[in-house]
């Protein structure tokens, strides 16, 4: 008993300790650029402040109480739901079908080259700066000189809609642009995922007489569930954070019909000089994002556990 103990070094330093210096630059940078600003932002949200050198005056939770009664604030989060439809729900559903069709149907019947070219086409909007895409679309949808309305007038439509300028069409127009931007991302992820799936599963199902749709439901969808969660998580967070397209397409207008939380907070920070109020909007948005992400991660963990139990 005593011999092995004596053989060990006397002071037992944990093995990880010498690695701590490697984390120091990252930790310092993290605290300075993310930790401290995040905490400061919450602190600012408890004040009324015009920014810069103006004095801060304590209002406690006053900004949050005001948010509760602020219709623009609620509108911005309602519009976030529309952003989720446009950036998560529609692209994921269409992307799933497109990926399966490209990989499993067209790829096999016309060769993988055809599938690769189509995939590249769908992905094209993803590689360009989203602000540039927004400027292009802003012009296409312009009521007077935009390409779309010039075409519509050309085919005899006398008064085509003012797509981005009319409160009833602005939000659907923005959503369409976002679907266009987003569609390639799930296609690419799902096609990579499908390459993991054992082709023998499909062959066995095919021999059993299962049609394409049955195979899609019974094999494809369960097999690529991990990727579906990743796409859902990343796109939902992106949809809640969306700023650039709104800034270049509509600036939240007309009549707040396309206002989103990030733009509302920007507006308060830099346009209305209501810094404390803007900080409160940003804080609420942060909490919403964390809660939504946590829910998605928990659902994923549960699905994985259930799958393990089932298998």
């Amino acid at each position, binding site marked *: 008993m005593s011999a092995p103990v004596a053989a060990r070094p006397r002071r037992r330093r944990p093995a990880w*300790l010498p690695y701590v210096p490697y984390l120091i630059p990252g930790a310092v940078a993290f605290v300075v650029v993310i930790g401290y600003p995040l905490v400061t932002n919450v602190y600012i949200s408890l004040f009324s402040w015009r920014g810069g050198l103006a004095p801060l005056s304590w209002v406690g939770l006053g900004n949050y109480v005001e948010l509760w009664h602020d219709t623009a604030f609620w509108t911005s989060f309602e519009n976030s739901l529309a952003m989720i439809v446009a950036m998560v729900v529609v692209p994921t559903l269409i992307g799933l079908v497109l990926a399966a069709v490209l990989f499993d149907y067209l790829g096999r019947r016309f060769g993988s080259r055809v599938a690769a070219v189509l995939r590249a086409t769908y992905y*094209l909007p993803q590689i360009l700066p989203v602000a*540039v895409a927004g400027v292009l679309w802003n012009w296409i949808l312009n009521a007077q000189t935009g390409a779309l309305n010039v075409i519509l007038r050309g085919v005899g439509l006398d008064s085509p809609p003012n797509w981005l300028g009319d409160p009833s069409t602005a939000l659907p127009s923005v959503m369409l642009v976002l679907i266009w931007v987003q569609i390639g991302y799930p296609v690419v992820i799902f096609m990579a995922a499908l390459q993991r799936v054992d082709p023998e599963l499909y062959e066995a199902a095919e021999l059993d007489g299962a049609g394409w749709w049955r195979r899609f439901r019974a094999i494809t969808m369960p097999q690529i569930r991990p990727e579906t969660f990743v796409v859902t998580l990343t796109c939902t967070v992106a949809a809640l954070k969306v700023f650039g397209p709104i800034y270049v397409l509509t600036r939240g207008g007309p009549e707040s019909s396309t206002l989103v939380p*990030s733009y509302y907070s920007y507006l308060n920070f830099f346009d209305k000089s209501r810094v404390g109020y803007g900080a409160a909007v*940003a804080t609420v948005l942060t909490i919403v994002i964390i809660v939504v992400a946590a829910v998605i991660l928990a659902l994923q963990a549960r699905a994985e556990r259930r799958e393990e139990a089932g298998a």
Partner: protein
Amino acid sequence: MAAITQETPAPAPVAPAPPRRSRPGARHRRGAARWFVLAGAVVVGLAVLAPFVIMVLNAVKSPAEYSQNGPLSLPTELYFDGVVSFWQRVDFPTKLWNSFFISAIVAVVGAGLSLLNAYAIGIGRIKGRLWIVMLFLLANMLPQEALIYPLFDMARQVGLSNSQWSVIIIFTVIQSAFGTYLLASVLGTFPPALLEAAALDGAGRWRILWQVVFPIVRPTLAVLVIFFFIWTWNEFFIPLVMLTSNDTQTIPIALASLQGDRMMDAPTTNAGSLISLLPALIFFLIFQRTLTRGVTAGAVK
């Protein structure tokens, strides 16, 4: 951060279609249904391409021709005034250099910082590493609005307002948060035999990092560098707030700030969009092969 994983329009799909037995293959090649499916997929592709086509057509079409023949006609003669006026108006070479300078430094330093963090977390297995990784992942999800005003204020206090260095520092940290998350899980599975062998040869931790770990994770690091570069290049919100003058701004900000300007007629808008997206497109085409190799790395942990 719309796209966590950038991918490639590569001619080389990651894996060829699985080999099929010949009989069902022959059966697949019959029937008209496949042509309808192909037509449907092509129509979706054309819908995605349409804005690009319209942009290219009208970037080199004179305003007179645009009002006469509309956006869909082929330009009868090439009109370069739009390109020239955008180029001069925003001083495009300056903007191009600004975008490149910021993105390149962020990409390289961000990847380096990710490697240091991941070395401590994945190989050093320091205590509380799960929480640290969670924290980095969380940082990646934060809305930039929740950081921007304090950052804006801090930059002013240290004399970095309207400085590209403030943007560089901020994005280096934000990008490395994702890089740390990714690399830490890669290094978590690093073969311990290699590390032990190096330690037996008397290599210290610093030498092991650069002579054993670095060469092996270099492909992943290369992918990170490219991702960071493209993401930073495409960023909008933080550069919009931090870079307030013409000589510091990046390409997307320059294009967006011309919006609503009276000189922005159809050719100028389209030429501006076209010129602004070309660098991203060219960069992407150059590096698509590197991306193909590492693309799935970011998709699933």
